[in-house]
């Protein structure tokens, strides 16, 4: 059974299929048609709903794409949809602002935008233009050009008072391990037991990639084990210049940490997915799905990060760069999961840059993702590590290129010198996003930028 809070009441559901999406559940089982299907792939935000989570400071809301979120992930959360904000015919202040600012045209994307605005204003007092833009970056509107929507959020922010109201009810809901198709174990020990009792399971660690198999390829996933509630997979720890990231850390949590500690990574994270995706997607999921265009791997490869794998029987570690064994393939064995990733934080005299090139800045797949960790002594390159995404079937370390460049004087790192080397050592593909030629050019030009202009952002 799962329990969640909706409109001031606890709702209980006992037999939801594991691969039923939250969108299908809301539209078909609850007849809540305020939640729209625009793409069923997490790319448009028309299905955005808010989930409230009980934390130290009361209920904290975050936005998710209902289309790629398993319905059972509702457990222990408060659900807020656009239909829930109005009281009878009395509109919520955000909704009123959308009306007065003419922020809806066809109206189909509007409920999703209203929820993204709701989550923003529940979390941020007096948001800046930039914060508003970030909050709605995962919502597509084909009608307005966005200006009136931005104006509506500004207007609503002027007089906004927060609205969290379900803390008492949420505290009544106990963590639940399992019961039906989607299990949500809360510890590694519980996970070990669940794995034993669940033949033919699939692990879901956020599901922003995995659920596409359900919604796009119509593959049934009758047994899912969700990793989102496992205590040992959460958290970020720093010890003696080394940081350890739990595999269950979401992009949003990583972003909060990186904003303080590793700004090039933070800049990248702003350009991975959207709030809705970053709230669900995890470090472990991004690595475990072994997507050739996953954006964290190049960064971790450049940082020479180590990945720690856990199974009920044993734990082991390896370098992230050795973890990817082929297209969509990893070193993970059966019954093994990613526990954490750790790396040495770049030091004051290190250059560390991350560049993502894509057709659209927000919520787009990388044409090229390039991370560089370099160090100069007396104008000579004494260490260099380059992680690349979008340049091969897996994320790679540009090892031979690095070897070739090592110990060179900065004067030997011009574009004319570098470009032929990049071409000689890397063999990217032509695909729908760009040609190999373009990727090689960008790769070389960005490398020159990093190594010559020393644009790296040092660690604070």
């Amino acid at each position: 059974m799962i329990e969640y809070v909706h409109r001031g009441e606890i709702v209980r559901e006992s037999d939801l299929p594991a691969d039923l999406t939250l969108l299908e559940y809301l539209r078909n089982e609850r007849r809540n048609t305020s939640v729209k299907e625009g793409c069923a792939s997490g790319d448009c935000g028309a299905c955005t709903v808010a989930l409230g989570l009980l934390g130290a400071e009361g209920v904290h809301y975050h936005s998710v794409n209902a289309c790629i979120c398993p319905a059972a992930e509702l457990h222990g959360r408060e659900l807020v949809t656009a239909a829930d904000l109005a009281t009878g015919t009395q509109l919520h202040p955000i909704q009123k602002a959308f009306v007065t600012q003419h922020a809806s045209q066809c109206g189909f994307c509007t409920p999703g935008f209203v929820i993204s605005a709701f989550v923003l204003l529940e979390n941020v007092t007096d948001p800046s233009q930039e914060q508003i833009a970030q909050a709605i970056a995962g919502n597509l509107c084909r009608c307005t050009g966005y200006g009136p929507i931005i104006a509506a959020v500004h207007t609503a922010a002027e007089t906004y008072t927060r609205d969290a109201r379900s803390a008492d009810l949420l505290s009544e809901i106990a963590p639940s391990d399992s019961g039906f198709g989607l299990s949500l174990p809360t510890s590694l020990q519980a996970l070990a037991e669940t794995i034993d009792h669940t033949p033919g399971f699939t692990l879901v660690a956020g599901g922003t990639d995995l659920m596409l198999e359900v919604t796009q390829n119509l593959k049934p996933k009758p047994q899912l084990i969700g990793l989102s509630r496992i205590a040992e997979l959460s958290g970020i720890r720093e010890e003696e210049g080394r940081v350890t990231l739990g595999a269950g850390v979401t992009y949003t949590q990583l972003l909060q940490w990186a904003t303080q500690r590793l700004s090039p990574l933070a800049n990248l994270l702003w350009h991975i997915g959207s709030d809705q995706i970053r709230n669900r997607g995890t470090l472990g999921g991004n690595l475990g799905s072994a997507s050739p265009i996953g954006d964290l791997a190049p960064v971790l490869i450049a940082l020479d990060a180590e990945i720690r794998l856990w199974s009920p029987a044993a734990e082991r570690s390896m370098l992230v760069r050795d973890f990817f064994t082929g297209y969509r393939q990893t070193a993970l064995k059966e019954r093994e999961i990613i526990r954490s990733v750790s790396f040495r934080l770049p030091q004051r005299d290190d250059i560390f840059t991350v560049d993502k090139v894509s057709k659209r800045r927000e919520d787009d797949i990388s044409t090229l993702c390039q991370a560089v960790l370099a160090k100069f002594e007396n104008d000579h390159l004494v260490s260099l590590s380059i992680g690349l995404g979008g340049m091969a079937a897996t994320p790679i370390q540009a090892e031979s290129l690095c070897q070739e460049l090592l110990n060179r004087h900065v004067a030997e790192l011009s574009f004319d010198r570098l470009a032929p080397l990049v071409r000689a050592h890397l063999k990217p593909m032509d695909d729908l996003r760009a040609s190999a030629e373009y990727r090689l050019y960008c790769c070389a030009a960005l490398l020159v930028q990093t190594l010559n202009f020393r644009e790296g952002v040092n660690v604070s």
Partner: protein
Amino acid sequence: MSAESPVGESIEHESARLHVSGRALYVDDIVLPEGTLFAAVGQSEIARGALIDLDLSAVESAPGVVTTLRFQDLPALTDVGPVFPGDPLLVNREVQFYGQALFAVAASTEKQARRAAQLGKAEYLPADPLLNIDAARAAEARVRPTHQLIKGEPEAAFARSKLQLNGSLQMGGQDHLYLEGQASLAIPTEEGGVLVYTSSQHPSEVQKLVAEVLGLPLNLICVEVRRMGGGFGGKETQAAPWACLAALLAVKTGRAVKLRLPRVVDMTLTGKRHPFFAEYQVGFDTEGKIEAVMAQLHGDCGYSPDLSDAIVDRAMFHFDNAYHLPHARITGERWQTHKVSNTAFRGFGGPQGMLAGEAMMQQIARSTGRDPLDVRLANLYPAQGGTTPYHQPVRGEQLERMLKRMEQTSHYRHRRSEIDAHNALDGRFLRGLALTPVKFGISFTVKHLNQAGVLLHIYTDGSVLVSQAGTEMGQGLYTKVGQIVAAVLGIDIANVRMSATRTDKVPNTSPTAASSGADLNGMAARNAAIELRSRLQHYVAQRESIGADQIEFADSKVSWPGGEQSFAELVYGAYLERVSLSATGFYKTPEIWYDRDQARGEPFFYFAQGVACTEVSVDRITGVTEVRRTDILHDAGMSLNPAIDKGQIEGGFVQGLGWLTTEELRWGSDGRLLTHSPATYKIPAVSNRPRELSIELLEEPNSAATIYSSKAVGEPPLMLAISVWCAIEDAIASCVKGPVDLQAPATPEAVIRALGLID
């Protein structure tokens, strides 16, 4: 008009409160009748070839499947081509694009239907598909014959020109990406008829085609469209096939059937904006003033004619844009490729024709060394005596004024010198600037479509219900028509309710397209409201023994010398006196004509105009562009609703910006669409909006006799985004010698190519 008239006010969208609270119902949200079935479409896996065998046994035995439908099951009409035949509802033998509909299946749940649709086993005899304009030209494969506009003696004048150049431009297509995909719900009614709820810009055509595929008269079919979650042209002809399949399955099973296309299916199965290739030879003087042009506009129409004849015509009609071409030959080609049949999309060919013309302006500027704005000013239509290549007179005075005003308010000259200085520093980021005009012809170029009807009821409590021919896709048509009715009757707009658009209320309607919605329906609504108002006037005049001209309708009251009455009381009194309180209104656009054989006429009632000044920044390392600032001055005549019109302008501009920058359609060598979802096809997100954007309305009355002297505003603003492409070209030109070879869309890779940094 009284001071309280809602016309000209920024009234909120009539559905805004429903939109924001998620209570607005779209087709997929309608409460379903008991036992409703769900349909899905089985698609071809080759782009071209013969379908030899189609084995549906696995489909039919899949869980939940109730029935299937293949070509052989179609009872009557099998071709749903809107103007010309060529669009088989289901493939008979000839597969013409990758993903074409082979069969339909109905099952108890949507998932069951979609899963079953994957189980069809087709055998093909494949042939080599033609996948681009070059291949179609080599094969001389056309969906419609060539058409040509000729003015003067272009070849002779070209030969006399001091300066000449040749140019060409590749332009990509564009997916509509309306947030609500195609959807239809068909409910069987009596005598074999069907009630169809659909998301369509053209309910009457859906009604006609549903009737024809069922072999029934039109009066047995009713089609209702309350609202669409976006249309943009993509639901003008493209909604009908799904309505037809749902209706056929509903009649076959006796149950309601819903057919909603999931996004990937929608994108692979419905037409898009036409990719174009333009070539031109232009002769001009040292000032860049054009003397003669020969232009060829090649449209990639996809596999069938659909609306391509009119679309390529409109591209040809807009190659001149705002410029006087003393001698011109403009040739339009409709090439057939084995891709989905391209269709209407906001601007309807106009954007492609206009972009080609504006690219030519940029190129003339590069060739003469003059500022592109000066070349544009030199070529504008003169105040008097100018004619288009199709021989319609044009007066250029107003647009010249708009350009010069924008030149001042945008500080164009000052910023030009700043940008030149910035680019001279040779840094990572280049800047570019462009100020471009739009002149867009308003009217359907198919004359008979320029008509509309309205059915207006006043109920005994004084509340008013308006049924009209036009459909609501977010553009605010219902709101504007409601404002007009309220204004004529002198009542509060809150008392006017807009009914869904239904074919049993207003028959034989035109599509809501060509920016014509408010022009046509607004006039028809006004005529209906005037008719009812005069009946009420007549009733009061008789009752009070006064002249009808002494009676006024305002502030929800009727008043006359010595008395007044609330509108509701008046209506009830009229009802008791047996006054008919229901009327129809009709309107047809006067004066327009076009003789296609002579390629001569006045196809447009008037022109809508706008100017935009855009500044961009271009990254020489990645090719990524950013729009730093756009200023727009747009002519919507006397705006019926400034907030709605500004919404159309901003939305159209950003949509055009997407077409010209991030939105790139890619097909595999097998003809499969690769960019078939928003994961790979990138429409503008909030960050693509210009960092600074200002929009001003001209607010001058239309010189043509339109509804309250307003101008159509749906399509024209899309072409303001040509300023973005020209500004990118301008940035590139600052560091490239000779002509700039920049394709559209100017993706990061296209920019790097145009900069000559890769081959």
